[in-house]
């Protein structure tokens, strides 16, 4: 009806409409601002470090200019060394030398101490020769060091993102694999996705039948079961993980029980093992998988299943053709939620997982807290975020899941 009136009055109405549509936005403004400053901006700032690394370029302005004149590949001529000495002397005086040396070290292992030595040399000797500098820092006499310095002077870099996939720029200017002893991240990503998949499947195997039972018992009992499922949900994840430590350890409750039941003859190593990690993560994630499934199952009318049976559908046919298609959105939503949350697990692998069960978050935390290599942390975070978003897009686009429509 209103569509008929629209064309004539659109111009007069649109200004008012515009104001009206802004009003709800104003109500949400405090939250949006909070999100922007506490969530959006830091994430962008941190993730940008994965590709934007100006430290080397900032520290070596003269060297950058001299390298541009030098033009030749390999170890450059005297003027570049002069410029480098000046830059390092400057950096030494300004106090930026340590950060520069650390940043270069990430690309050129061993460069840190040698650069500091050259800087000290430049401080004592106003005009150090090329030989003297190479003597102080043998790396400067090698061709690959200068390749690293040249790429390092680019403010925008793909170095860290490539590293996240265990790739690097080779000296020939192509992308190749890093040496086997440095290749670590693809294995960690693979392990993270594997454990997330296993935990998701385990929660689904537990949650689906439980949700079905909950929809088919009296509301009082369903409520009690729901509280029991949610009770751990309301407990701190740290406390729950600590509780699992008590249960899973070698002389813990689970091993006592298994021995008493005679199911094992020896005490199992559940702590600091993948089995223990998956058990603990499954427990923590169960409500996340269960609740979307339960909510969708409750919305399926029992009369539909009766109708399907009276129309000749055998129980399995009814389940496959009438029930499952209707609860599938909840199953997908629950699994997606658990899978994504599993990708970011940190404290549980630290406390329960073994050394070979550390997930990508543990590496990110390590880079942030211990190595202080924020660029690498940013690159790994970026890959994690991108794969999560990619997964979400695939689920919504190709499996017809709409999280915004979930009740």
């Amino acid at each position: 009806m209103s569509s008929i009136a629209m064309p004539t009055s659109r111009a007069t109405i649109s200004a008012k409409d515009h104001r009206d549509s802004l009003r709800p936005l104003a109500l949400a403004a405090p939250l949006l601002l909070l999100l922007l400053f506490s969530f959006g901006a830091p994430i962008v700032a941190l993730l940008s470090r994965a590709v934007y690394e100006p430290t080397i370029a900032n520290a070596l302005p003269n060297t950058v200019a001299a390298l541009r004149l030098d033009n030749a590949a390999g170890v450059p001529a005297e003027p570049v060394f002069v410029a480098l000495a000046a830059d390092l002397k400057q950096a030494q005086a300004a106090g930026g030398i340590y950060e520069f040396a650390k940043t270069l070290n990430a690309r050129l292992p061993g460069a840190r101490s040698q650069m500091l030595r050259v800087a000290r040399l430049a401080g004592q000797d106003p005009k150090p020769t090329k030989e003297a500098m190479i003597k102080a820092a043998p790396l400067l006499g090698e061709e690959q060091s200068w390749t690293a310095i040249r790429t390092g002077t680019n403010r925008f870099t793909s170095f860290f993102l490539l590293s996240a996939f265990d790739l690097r720029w080779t000296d020939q200017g192509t992308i190749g694999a890093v040496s086997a002893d440095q290749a670590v991240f693809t294995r960690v990503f693979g392990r993270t996705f594997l454990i997330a998949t296993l935990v998701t499947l385990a929660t689904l195997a537990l949650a689906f039948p439980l949700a079905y039972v909950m929809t088919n018992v009296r509301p009082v009992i369903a409520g009690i079961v729901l509280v029991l499922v949610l009770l751990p949900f309301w407990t701190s994840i740290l406390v729950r993980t600590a509780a699992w430590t008590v249960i899973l350890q070698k002389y813990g409750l689970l091993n006592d029980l298994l021995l008493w039941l005679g199911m094992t003859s020896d005490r199992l190593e559940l702590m600091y093992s993948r089995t223990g990690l998956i058990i603990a993560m499954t427990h923590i994630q169960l409500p996340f998988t269960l609740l979307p499934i339960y909510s969708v199952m409750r919305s399926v009318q029992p009369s539909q299943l009766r109708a399907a049976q009276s129309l000749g559908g055998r129980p399995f046919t009814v389940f496959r053709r009438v029930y499952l298609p209707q609860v599938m959105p909840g199953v997908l939503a629950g699994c997606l939620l658990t899978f994504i949350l599993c990708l970011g697990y940190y404290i549980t692998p630290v406390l329960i997982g073994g050394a070979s069960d550390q997930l990508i978050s543990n590496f990110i935390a390590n880079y942030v807290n211990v190595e202080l290599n924020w660029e690498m942390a940013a690159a790994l975070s970026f890959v994690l975020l991108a794969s999560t978003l990619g997964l979400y897009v695939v689920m919504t686009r190709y499996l017809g899941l709409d999280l915004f429509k979930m009740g």
Partner: protein
Amino acid sequence: MVSTGQSSSLREVSAADASPTTGQPGTTGPAMTSRPVSGPAGQGDAKFVEFIDVEKMYGHFHAVRRLNLSIGRGEFVTFLGPSGSGKTTTLNMLAGFERPSQGVITLDGKSVDRLPPYERNIGMVFQNYALFPHMSVADNVAFPLSVRKVPKAEIGPRVTRALEMVRLERFKDRKPAQMSGGQQQRVALARALVFQPTLVLMDEPLGALDKKLREHMQIELKQIHEMLGVTIVYVTHDQSEALTMSDRVAIFENGAIVQIGTPDGLYNEPATAFVASFIGENNALDGIVERVDGNQCMVALPTGLTATAMAVGNLRPGAAVQLAIRPERIAGAGEHPDNRFKATVDGRIYHGDHQRLLARLPSGQVLTVKIGPDATMATGEAIDLCWRTADCRAFPAGGVPDGNTANTGSVT
């Protein structure tokens, strides 16, 4: 209106392929094509569905008590009663969703005790339609065919014919949520009929529709019933719906059938005060039996009035009774000499085609009287009322009738 061409094409199909889909060769074909309205019917036809001493208990709750009922092939039988009277439980036992605690239910002479719902070949229509929301209308209707492994080439035309029958063939690609309640219920009906079941159960199918649509659907259901000759068991708590559509109506009260009979039989000769008040409108007058004279009795009303009425059941002088008289059976003075009363007009309600007069007897009891649309009577006016003894029935007051005796049929 459904054209005869459509109906005959449906019949041809039913006769042709009823046996492979129903699994009851020989018996289903004729049932779909001809409907034994009257005349001699075989034993299997008169007792197509039979409940024998069926009971259902939920813990200590007696949902259905000693139910005995036979339904003939092609009959339209309605279970009528207030909610909680056991009618839906009875229907669910017939459908196979509930198992009787005791007794036997037979379908076409065979006990269905061990038969799960999906092997009973019974179509069912639910109050909330129970369409599958993730399937299109055509897929919904095709469901019973595809689970029966009907060849794909055959499914399409049969779905189209079923949708034509309910005049929804244009909507075959829609999802149920895009349709109105009435349309959805017609889809559900097409789905319950497309596999040519011998028996269709309907659990308050029109309960969710508004009045006008409900009345329209009643006519449509009745036409489909006559066209296909299928046996229908219909559950409702709406007495006018039951009277309009059914061949026979079974009145349920507290888990038992208190009376079963044709609509006019129930209306004119209710067996209990409950049936009299549940079917149609009724004036109830409490009194004490003064004298019993054959099948008639004289009843003393408060403040010295007396009335004669047909005695229902075994009444003795001194027994408390309830008189039941329909509003349309009360006439003005002089028409019937049997029972005459003076009354004053308490009010008059206009209904368009008729009016309802509230008449207060000297005893203080108020009667509703149906009068013509043009009558003009002022409140407070003194009038005379009378009715025939044959139109007034005296029931034992307050007694809940025993299901056993009332079950045997209408009382005449």
